[in-house]
């Protein structure tokens, strides 16, 4: 795989992960437990869509260098099948209860913050610019999701129990966040991608700190989903992604090229 081909794949991992989670958050519109949370989830999703667009645009430029023509943001988002999606499996998991949505967001935000921070010094100048812009937005996301972990964990017996169950349930999807395959390793060696190995320890420390404050037990299971280079980043997804894409892509698939 050439350097540009690896970069294209890596940019799709970043973009697809943002977009799929944004789509999940969008499913909460009109159903949030309180109005403020309805608005907050949508705002977080909106930030992620904005960031996904920047990554897709860059991916399209890289693809143009590779193939003569690069796909547009819309083509990349709406006209690829599940197996071509490169998002991590964590973000395609269903919304479930508010505890499930919060656990998913918490694990993701803490990872996202550190990845973006690392990417601000990427040797790819455009990657560094996008990361610096996105990092500022994600700093709010991190505060918000950690806040909710504490509120629900250190809340009532019921909220504590449900928050703990949600953290345990999604824990096996966190391994993939830090799994490095040959594509990513080549880019890490080139100083372009975030070195996930270095970020794993600080991520665990942050999860442990927030769990302690929330009177929750940090999950400790070692078996992880999507290991061995067969995870979402390689296009291997759980059953949930297909349905999400069916809804998200329905309009462009039915009326190709439709615009507002």
């Amino acid at each position: 795989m050439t350097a540009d081909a690896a970069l294209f794949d890596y940019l799709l991992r970043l973009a697809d992960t943002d977009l799929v989670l944004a789509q999940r958050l969008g499913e909460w519109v009109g159903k949030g437990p309180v109005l403020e949370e309805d608005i907050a989830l949508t705002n977080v999703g909106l930030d992620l869509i904005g960031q996904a667009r920047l990554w897709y645009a860059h991916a399209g430029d890289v693809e143009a260098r590779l193939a003569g023509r690069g796909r547009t943001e819309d083509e990349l988002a709406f006209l690829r099948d599940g197996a071509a999606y490169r998002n991590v499996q964590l973000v395609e998991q269903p919304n479930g209860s508010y505890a499930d949505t919060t656990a998913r967001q918490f694990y993701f935000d803490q990872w996202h913050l550190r990845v973006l921070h690392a990417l601000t010094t990427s040797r790819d100048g455009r990657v560094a610019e996008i990361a610096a812009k996105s990092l500022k937005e994600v700093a709010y996301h991190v505060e918000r999701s950690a806040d909710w972990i504490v509120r629900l964990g250190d809340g009532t017996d019921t909220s504590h129990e449900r928050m703990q169950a949600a953290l345990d349930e999604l824990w096996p999807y966190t391994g993939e966040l830090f799994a490095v395959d040959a594509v990513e390793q080549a880019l890490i060696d080139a100083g372009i991608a975030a070195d996930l190995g270095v970020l794993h320890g600080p991520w665990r420390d942050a999860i442990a700190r927030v769990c302690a404050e929330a009177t929750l037990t940090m999950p400790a299971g070692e078996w992880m989903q999507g290991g061995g280079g067969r995870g979402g980043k390689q296009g291997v997804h759980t059953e949930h992604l297909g349905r999400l894409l069916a809804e998200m892509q329905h309009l462009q698939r039915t009326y190709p090229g439709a615009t507002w």
Partner: protein
Amino acid sequence: MVSVAASAALAPAWAAATVPADAIERAWAALATVPDPEIPMVSVVELGIVRDVRLDDGAVVVDVTPTYSGCPATDIIARDIETALAAAGCPGARVVTRLAPAWTTDWIAPEGRRKLAAFGIAPPGGPAPRIDVTGISPLRRAAAVACPRCASTRTRLVAQFGSTACKAQYRCEACLEPFDYFKPH
């Protein structure tokens, strides 16, 4: 990027005929009248998103930096700016989006802050926080935010996000009014 004087010498002859010599000044004056579509009491200049106005190949180019990457107003702002500049006698003016350095609320002009407060939106209470990824606490809180209505600092955060991504929702414990707070960013 070229200055007005240099461009007059470099610009092709046809450009000299269409772009007035005071194009940059006209452009700035026109930009001061373009409101942010979601916070219409402030102009795009007061909001600090206009980073530069320059001449490129005989046409006015406005460098704009988006506030938040998902801000739905970004495309509308670009269109509004191009329309305003065309009306101000700068044909072919265009907007270029610039990501770096990333926009910060530190760039909101003093006049813009005054207008926000007068409109009932508390302006950013301090400089943009430096992001320390190692020390982020789940309960990090902004400094006391003053109520734009009664100026009391007995206020509390209701939600991290308000009517737009750039604002949070607060409530004043003194006058009981809810209000938007423009987050330092």
